[in-house]
Structures are given as C-alpha cells and as structure tokens.
C-alpha cells in the first residue's frame, strides 16, 4: 500500500511538471474583459486599444516556458513564425513588436506601474496585486 501511495505521489509530481498554466494580467484598475481572440489581436499588433478605446501596451516575456505556451496557445504561432510575422511588419513600417521583459516579476512591475499594460506570466509567479483576465494551460512536453 505504501508503495502504491509513493507511486501515486511520484506520478502526481511528474504530471504537475507536464503542464504549466499561464495567466494574462492587467492593472487592478483595468476593467477590460478580453477573450483569447482579443488578446491575440493586441499581441499581434492588429488591435491597438482595449474594447473601451483606451490604448493597450502589451508586454512580452523575452523567452521561457510561459512565452512558448503563450505563443502556442494564444498566438497560435511557433517562435519562428512569430519572428517572420513581425519581420514583415517591421520591414514594411507597419508596426513594432511588443516590448520584451526578462522575467515574470518585471512583467508584474510593468503592469502595476502602468494601467494600460497587459502581460502574461507563469501562474506560479502570480501575486494578488494584479488582475487576471485570462488563463491558459500549456503542455510543456509538447514544446
């Protein structure tokens, strides 16, 4: 019985490593309600403002699992597809990609400093000061 419990605990640890959630966060005073399509348009530069007309400032993570999950689940593009997408816009003068920050804490700080900012972080880094507007589950093994 003890062996079975140990195996189950091990399995649960293993499973928790298979999946990681990311959360899309905004300033607590930002009342925007966004679905995945709205978030995608903001991060692809196709929409510049929240539905209430206020200009949005999306911020990306430079790299890491959260970014990969966000690219895959929300933007539905691989890293290279996204790079090619932005290269087309940059080299035609149509837009510039969102600013990139190094880690979750930097994104949280940015969101807390700026009511118009929108970013995403690993759910494990979530702090109560920010408002979560969407949550996505990512299969890290599927990278």
């Amino acid at each position, binding site marked *: 019985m003890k062996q079975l419990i140990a195996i189950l605990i091990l399995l649960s640890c293993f499973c928790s490593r298979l999946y990681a959630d990311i959360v899309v966060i905004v300033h607590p005073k930002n009342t925007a309600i966004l679905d995945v*399509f709205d978030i995608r*348009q903001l991060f692809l530069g*196709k*929409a*510049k*403002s929240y539905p209430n007309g206020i*200009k949005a400032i999306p911020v990306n993570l430079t790299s890491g699992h959260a970014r990969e999950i966000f690219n895959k689940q929300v933007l539905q593009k*691989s*890293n*290279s597809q996204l*790079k*090619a997408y932005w*290269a*087309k816009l*940059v*080299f*035609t*003068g*149509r837009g*510039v990609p969102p600013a990139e920050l190094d880690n979750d804490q930097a994104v949280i700080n940015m969101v807390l400093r700026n009511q118009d900012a929108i970013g995403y972080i690993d759910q494990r880094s979530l702090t109560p000061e920010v408002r979560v507007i969407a949550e996505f589950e990512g299969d890290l093994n599927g990278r």
Partner: protein
Amino acid sequence: MKVWKFVLFFLIFSSPILRAAEISVNGFASVRGGQILQDDAHQNPRLPDMYNDEYFTLTDESLFAIQGRVDLQHKLSATVQLVAHGSENFEPEVKWAYLSYQLNDNHALHVGRFANPIFHQSEYELVGYTHNFSRLPKSVYFGFDFSNVDGIKLQSNFLIEELYLDTHLSYSSWQGDIFNVSTAQSYDSELNDIFNFSATLSGENWQLFGGYLSGGFASTEWDSQLIFPLIDGFNAASGSSLSEQEVQLIKAQLGADDNKGEYAYMGANIEWAKWIFNLEYVEYQLKDSFDSLNRGWFTAVGRRLGDFVVTYHHEVYLQSANGYPQANSMQSDAEKLITKQTIDILNQREMYMDVVSLRYDFHPSAALKADIFVGNDKREQVGSFVGYSFGLDIVF
C-alpha cells in the same frame, strides 16, 4: 565590403542627440550560394540577380541590411534602411528614408523614400526569413528597378469583427535605370504620377490580397538607343521602301516614352493544420508600346514538419504578343512585318519552373534554406535548365 556607411549608421543611431529618443535598430541578411547547371550548347536563362555565370557563387543573392527607426515622440518617427547587395559589390545603398506620422490607431502617413508594393510581397522581397522559399518566385518577383519610390503613402488597417483589413494608398515617382533582359543593358527612365492601391484581407488562417499600380513612363533612351534603332535595322534589312512617314508611324506605335504602365496582382495564402498554400497571379504592361502583356503566377504547397518546412512550387512567366495588336493600324505588309519583328525581339521569355525548397529553423532568428529548381525557357537558345542553391537567412 564598404562598411563605412554601416559604421556611420551606427554612430548616428547611437549619438547623444538621439539618445533621448526611442530608437530601434533591426536588420536582415541572406548568405546564399548556388549555380545554374547549363550545358555549353544552351545559354543561361539570365534570371535577375541569380547565377548568370556558369560557376558556383555566393555573391549574387547575398545581402546585408540594417534599419533604424527613431521615435521622435508625438506620433512622429523617422526610418532609414541601408541595404548592401552582393551583386553590387556590397556597396550600401539607402533604400528607404521616410518620416511617419501616426494619425490614429488605424492610419499612418509616410513621406519620403519607401518600398513600392508592386506585388503582394514586394515590400519585404529582400527579407528572406519572412517566407519559406529559398527566394520568392522569379516569375513574379522579377527584381523591378522601381521597387523603391519617392512620395507619400497612407497605410491603414481595420479590424472588422474577426477579419483584418490592411490597405496601402500611395502617390509617388521614381527615376533611375531600367534593365532590359533582351539587351542586358540599362536605360535611363522615369516613372511619374505613380498611383498604387493594395489591400489584404486576413482571417484566422487565410489571406486574400490584391493591388493595382499605374504610372507614366518617360524615357528617351529606351526609344533612341533601343527601340528605334531596331526598327531602322529591320527596315534596312527588309529592303522595303517604306517612307519616312511610315517608319515614324511604326516608331510612334512601338515607342516606350510617354506611355502608361499598369501593374496588377491578386492571390491567396492559406494555412490549414500543418499545410501551407500560396497563390499569386500578376500581370503588367507598358500600354500602347512595344510591350506585350506580361503575366506571371505561382502556386505553392508546403508542409511544416517540426522545425522544417518543405515547399513545392510551380511558377510561370509568359509574355505573349497576342495577335500583335500594335500592327492593326499598319497599312502595308512591310510595316506589319517590321512591327512584329521588333516586338518579337523585345519580348522577353516564356518560362516555367518547378522548385522544391527546404527551410530549417535551427535558431530563433535564423533559417537554413536549400532548393533545387528545374526550369524551361522557351527561347531556343536557352531551353531547359537545372539549378540549386543553399544559404542562410537571418533577422535581428
């Protein structure tokens, strides 16, 4: 490589004057080598900037580019792009230099020298990383000399429910040399009053696009150094006794100067699961001149396989005299014959190519690419040809 212009570029964009402004520097580069394998009995098809010698070369398609953008605040920005082509001894050239004013979220105004979207991918034609081909199909992306123009353009975008519409409207002019494939020489030319409108409608996994350009062509060199000597030569060789008036009539009918050029394109891109489909059709002509209707198109199917993309595409370029309408107003057989001979010698080619390309995204900002192409040029002296290339495309 003439690097001093790039150094100057960096110095300017890192100068204290601009330190307070928001500056972004991006760039792209391609290093590609290849060769067209043609036997001694046939001529090289002489595709623009692509392996016109019989040897392997890394020069023809390689290029380096750097672009700086300074946000001058209050919705104003300035952009400069330098490009150094291997085919031009890597001499850096200012391709773009324009000021932009963001009118609102949907509209931006640009003034200066900018890319001329003759066809759908013309604006980023040189940025190899943006597409899965080793190079964009030559039957459509022919390396037009007037790919950068001076003028004003309005770029707009609209999010309509789940559709995204991107439009471009510009008025511009261009002055420079235009290369003629038949003679392999360039002639001083101008395009004035260039009106260009293009639109791209996008859904989740698809795009429909189209565009139209018209401009007034002016070049006395095309007439005096190329077309008229040909007419005089054919007239002399025919032994006919055409009057000066009749010869002038032919010249007026076939001359290039002061005529209107028209360019149009349409096509679609679809991504479904891991499949990619591309289609683009273009046609263009210098109206009321020696130039017969040019048509080009390609169809491509690709498949993503992890970090690899395999693409097959078929491309066609046709320039058909189509019954020689220029000869309709001619009275005598001699006039008609000389008209047809002149048109025939100036018409370019009928060409088909089948290409298999492989892209490997081995790095977040770089892709390795290779291709094998098999073509058939209907000019007797060229015939069928085979070639290959491989190289590296990066963006930063």
